[in-house]
């Protein structure tokens, strides 16, 4: 076996192992982070406040003002939610959809605490009789467009049906459908009236200017309202509940990556063993002219170090190039959600060092085998 070819093969094995881990990280961690990002931006904020039992009865204005006094908080907004039956008459035909999620928003504070308005084509909810229809709902209702009238029917707290007509001002459509594409958005006060909920609020979304302070702000909030039954979760906690399965999937993918790297180590063992076999005669000559076992060991260990160094450097360079490409192009798959690509230097360095270490460990056995060769036996090898 050609020595250069063997070394290139071993270096490639290490590089590809690292590249696979980087690609896995970019795609799967990027997808996870993108979903968390969109959950935060559209639905939960950085802190999501609810009542443990039912609706928040404290004035939303009081809570929003409380949050907005904290320097780490950029904005806060109340949300209300329910389900509704919707009907629309298009071209003389009445189409009805049942149990459609209904979201009530405060048009003034919502655009500061959430980016859901950016997914709306047309105009966001601006008055008490306007609605934004999610693109999926609009499609199911036979192609509702801006300017159409829709009729929403909800059941209030007393079990009475309440119906109201709305003008559609916008259609919400988000990349990957992570926004409110399957919901209808209306003014929060209108929804409260229809549900006969007075000043009740379903949840408060809090957007921070520094997400790292989420736990601190959450704890301060819960300490400040000890007699209320508030439940406050950071986005990580909210996402953990919603995405625990996904998290397990990522752990599995990482395991697969690690196995890939282990395969690289086995490839190095194989290649180094082939190299030892092909160099048996030369090892014998080296031993004959005075090389000690330690010298032979060091030669093959040095090769392992060389393979590990070049492989780790090349693999990290390739992996980082892919990461930069994915970040700069805002990589998506088939027009789906754009990946949230980040540089996790801790993981990058850990991956490089693991590969480097594995390459050296993988070189130990073949190196040891090389030292056991007897000069006379080795030189008989053709």
């Amino acid at each position, binding site marked *: 076996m050609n020595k250069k070819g063997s070394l290139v093969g071993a270096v490639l094995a290490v590089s590809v192992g690292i590249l696979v881990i980087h690609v896995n990280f970019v795609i799967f961690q990027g997808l996870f982070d993108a979903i968390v990002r969109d959950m935060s931006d559209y639905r939960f904020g950085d802190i999501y406040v609810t009542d443990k039992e039912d609706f928040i009865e404290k004035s939303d204005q009081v809570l929003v003002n409380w949050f907005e006094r904290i320097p780490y908080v950029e904005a806060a907004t109340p949300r209300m939610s329910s389900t509704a039956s919707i009907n629309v008459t298009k071209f003389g035909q009445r189409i009805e959809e049942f149990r459609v999620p209904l979201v009530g928003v405060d048009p003034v504070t919502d655009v500061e605490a959430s980016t859901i308005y950016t997914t709306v084509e047309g105009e966001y909810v601006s008055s008490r009789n306007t609605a934004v229809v999610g693109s999926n709902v609009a499609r199911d209702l036979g192609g509702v467009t801006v300017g159409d009238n829709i009729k929403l029917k909800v059941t209030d707290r007393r079990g009475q049906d309440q119906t109201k007509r709305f003008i559609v001002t916008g259609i919400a459509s988000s990349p990957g459908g992570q926004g409110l594409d399957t919901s209808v958005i209306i003014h929060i006060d209108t929804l409260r009236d229809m549900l006969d909920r007075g000043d009740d609020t379903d949840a408060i979304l809090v957007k921070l200017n520094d997400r790292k302070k989420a736990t601190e702000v959450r704890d301060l909030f819960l300490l400040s309202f000890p007699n209320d039954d508030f439940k406050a979760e950071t986005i990580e906690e909210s996402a953990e509940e919603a995405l625990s399965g996904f998290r397990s999937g990522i752990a599995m993918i990482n395991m697969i990556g690690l196995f890939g790297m282990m395969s690289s180590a086995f490839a190095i063992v194989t290649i180094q063993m082939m190299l030892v076999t092909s160099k048996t005669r030369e090892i014998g000559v*080296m031993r004959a002219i005075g090389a000690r076992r330690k*010298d032979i060991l060091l030669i093959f260990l040095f090769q392992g170090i060389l393979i590990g160094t070049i492989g780790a450097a090349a693999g990290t360079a390739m992996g980082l190039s892919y990461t930069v490409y994915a970040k700069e192009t805002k990589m998506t798959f088939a027009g789906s959600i754009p990946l949230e690509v980040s540089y996790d230097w801790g993981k990058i360095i850990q991956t490089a060092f693991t590969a480097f270490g594995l390459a050296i460990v993988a070189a130990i056995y073949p190196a040891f085998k090389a030292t056991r060769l007897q000069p*006379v036996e080795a030189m008989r090898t053709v």
Partner: protein
Amino acid sequence: MKNLSKTYGEGDTKVNALTDATFSIKKGEFLLIVGSSGSGKTTLLNMIGLLDKPTAGMVFIDDTETTKLNDNEISSFRNSKLGFVFQFANLMPDLTVLENVILPRSIQKTEQNAVDDAMKLLRAVGLESQIHKRANKISGGQAQRAAIARALVNRPSIVLADEPTGNLDSVTTETIIQLMKSMARKLNLTFVVVTHDREQFGEVDRVITVKDGRVIETENNSMKVVA
């Protein structure tokens, strides 16, 4: 060499490759070990060269009982006291001719003046124009000359050559033999050469004949002595 024996295998497969060989080699002597194929001459050379351990007996080189040395000491001893020329030149194919000649010094980690010393030897063997060529790019005769230079670079006490011309044509064989003889004379070196073709070497200091693992006779210049 004192009562040197080497046995391979055990039980039914036991083979006595060398039996009770006793003889001494004088400094500066050009000694041939001759015998037919399988007679045990290479085994004897391997014992002298510390490439193989005897089953019984002792090997003294420069008053050192080499059979008592450990593996590291044997390696150092081989490196500093012995030079080897093999049937196939056994140069490192990826290294240049000069790097091959310097190799024993590199192993010894005494690379000071190594290039100068190697260059002197390469000039002496007529390879000064080939020093930067890779070892796998030179002819068989040139490779064997480089191997002789490599064997001499550490100024060894003994140079051991195992069928050094076995792989060469007759013209190159003559050149290599004359080269070894002249180097031996010029540098007052002890040469022990294993060959199956006594006639090729012409006049030498001494000849030892090995048959069926036994040293059966020695020829001192023209005088034959039964061992």
